[in-house]
């Protein structure tokens, strides 16, 4: 089978792969790189469970062809912590119980990180809009909003 060669940065590390051209970014992450923290909830770009950051911007990795990441930088849930220290967004979601079953959580965390990177002091409405692409069926979102607010405070303390 014909393959294509890609060079990219994944969670800060340089990576090279040779893969079939029809691979999606989600398949590349889960099947080739064993980064299984990113989940497939629908495969249609509707649920947000597969959200990752591509050059700092959130994308649904099920809708991105792996070929598109050549020369670019991808951040997944596995890339947030440094050593044993959790990222402030992760810590905030623990402290505020911002998830239950955990399946949508990686995507929610990445969307939160992208929001707070761009807008360190979001309003309630901005939080709701920023997370409108991530379905959560467990929490009813209230504790997610509280987690995002706590994360904003936590990041402030980090600066």
């Amino acid at each position, binding site marked *: 089978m014909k393959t294509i060669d890609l060079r990219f940065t994944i969670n800060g590390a340089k990576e090279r792969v040779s893969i079939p051209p029809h691979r999606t970014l989600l398949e590349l992450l889960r099947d080739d790189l064993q*980064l*299984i*923290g*990113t*989940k*497939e*909830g*629908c*495969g*249609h770009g*509707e*649920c947000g*469970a597969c959200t990752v950051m591509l050059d700092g911007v959130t994308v649904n990795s099920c809708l991105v062809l792996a070929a598109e990441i050549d020369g670019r930088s991808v951040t*997944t*849930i*596995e890339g*947030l*912590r440094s050593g044993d220290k*959790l990222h402030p967004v*992760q810590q905030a*979601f*623990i*402290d505020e*119980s911002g*998830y*239950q*079953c*955990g*399946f*949508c*959580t*990686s995507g929610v*965390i990445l969307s939160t990180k992208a929001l707070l990177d761009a807008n360190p002091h979001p309003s309630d409405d901005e*939080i*709701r*809009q920023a*997370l*409108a*692409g*991530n*379905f*959560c*069926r*467990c*929490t*009813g*979102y*209230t*504790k*997610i*909003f509280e987690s995002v607010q706590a994360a904003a405070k936590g990041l402030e303390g980090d600066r």
Partner: protein
Amino acid sequence: MGVEGIGASVVRKEDKRFITGKGHYTDDIRLHGMTYAHFVRSPHAHARVAGIDASAALKMPGVVAVLTGRQLVDDKIGNLICGWMIHSKDGSPMHMGAWPAMAPDTVRFVGQAVAVVIAETRNQARDAAEAVAVDYKELPAVSTIKAALAPGAPQLHPEAPGNIVYDWSIGDKAATDAAFAGAAHVVALELTNNRLIPNAMEPRSAIADYDAAEDHYTLHTTSQNPHVARLVLSAFYNIAPEHKLRVIAPDVGGGFGSKIYVYPEEMVALWAARKVQRPVKWTADRTESFLTDAHGRDHVSKAEMAFDANHRMLGLRVATLANFGAYMSLFSSAVPTYLYATLLSGQYVIPTIYAEVKGVYTNTTPVDAYRGAGRPEANYLLERLVETAARTLKVDPAELRRKNFITTFPYQTPVIMTYDTGDYHASLDAALKAIDYAGFPARKAAARKRGVLRGLGLSCYIEACGIAPSKAVGSLGAGVGLWESAEIRVNPVGTIEVLTGSHSHGQGHETTFAQVVAERLGIPIAQVSVVHGDTDKVQFGMGTYGSRSAAVGISAVIKAMEKMEAKARRIAAHQLEVAEDDIVIENGEFKVAGTDKKLAFASIALAAYTAHNLPEGMEPGLKETAFYDPSNFTFPAGAYAAEVEVDPATGRTTFVNFVAADDFGRLINPMIVEGQVHGGLAQGIGQALMEGAVYDGEGQLVTASYMDYTMPRAADLPSFDLRHTTTICPSNPAGVKGCGEAGAIGASAATVNAITDAIGNNRLEMPATPDRVWAAIHGNG
């Protein structure tokens, strides 16, 4: 309470793996040599399968096998079962057609499997499934209850004439008719309870592995009750005997009922793994989830309530038609009967109740328990009827409820249940205070000046949880007992493993169960780990559904702890040379009351395992098991108050406030309870405002993707104001009632009552989408 014990909002022990992407869900697991399954599914709602030609598919790259429903029959694999026998009012057993895991002859809903392709990769299996040629001879289909019951309607199963599974009743018809004959007022309402699709964010998945040398199967699956799955697969489907089948439900990404059932795909994966002598993995795509996960609700009802001249309730009469879809799923038969009609008394003294329920087959996806399961349908019906009555009789809705509340306990309803405790005035008062009920007329008037319609709706719900006393459910037709088991394994160093038959798929059991154990001994929860979800580790269990894990599962843990503590106490008394009664347990130590003599729990554990100095005749070790069978259901109850604004120009509803005042008995971890309530409210509000499965007249599911099935997103929901009133549950040692379903049970009626109050028009069905609300205001008023 200690800082980590009962009542403390401890952050969850399971959080770190979920927050770092290290949760291990079924689809994350890979086995050596694994193959992938993709099912060939019917595009027709009703058709005869005249033939299947797999020759082209078998030649495609990577294809290992194509297996059909006929081969399942040849291998004597059993049909899917319904585990709860319901008898019609004439005494006849329910009329059920067979449900084969893959249809050999006839398909009866869109998405039903007829064959499966096993291939080296998921995409190869998917491609080859497209190449399987199935010769369908289409038959006329019925997709609604009305169409299924029409004269001359197409018949689904020869066993069920008229498409009727059962015609069941509960209560005293003659007494109820007499109450209506003598009533001063009768209020009536017709309403539907819309069909919902559960949509756990993790799609169902199964990995089956067959070890030919040992003739042993392992199934990794997305299950809320792995032991029940193993029992059913062994006892009814002829897959393998229980000791040759291990079922593992690892991290499971939400269930809401939809992962209780043993589905065709798990059966076929196990069977296929033996056929191809390699592991077989299947993971649903989202459209398969929409088409094949058991749906919920789908009732059409007529309800009437009789009142005396003083507005006291005299009687309730209900006739409900319940849509079961094309086949009877595992617990489906119990949902619109014993989980529904037994709750029709609500929080009220209603001297007599009579309800009839007809279960109906249609060419749609099977319907079974979904969060709340029968109780949301009962509460929606009753609370819309009570609100309608208040408006018709021109009395304050809160006052009408108060006048009829049950206030003495235990209370025997006319529909089986005996409520053990509750304080319905307290929860209603709490809700009304939180929402400023007294100030509402002024707010409504102010909104009117802005051109906006403001409404306030109440819903005083009750549910029966902690299912259930085994003897009671057995007498009502259940095929299993509904106890729970627990095992306490104390290690020689004094750490504890709690093995439970409950299963956590988001509920946080690894934390709450540990809190209960830690509290009893006064040790940190870090010294306690909770083991669940594996039939090789936990001996048996009935699993998690019906808000039963705390009331039944934790009660089993307490019972096992009591046994373990009794033995530890004997060891301590022996070594300290005192009487057992003199020992108190505190801060991880067994102390002699009034002295400084004590033994650390860890040293007692070590003594139990070294066995150098134990009381005469005592066995070594420190491990105890308990099976807890509840003495009654539990009865969580509460009052919900929704305040909304409706824009008359667009029909759009916006929440101003949503108050939930719940009585769950003792709270073990308030933070987790809040999360459970929030999630339930979101699903109840989703049902009220936006969710609904839509079939066209030919049985095609129109809402088979997130583009078409509207689920609440972050921007759609209000923040919730939660209050708690507490009556400790007297029926179990934990004092808990259960909190997992309340939100989904109480929220829909409060929301719709608020909208109908706003628009001054009661002709509104769920989901109350803007176009429906607009039509209610302008079109059909």
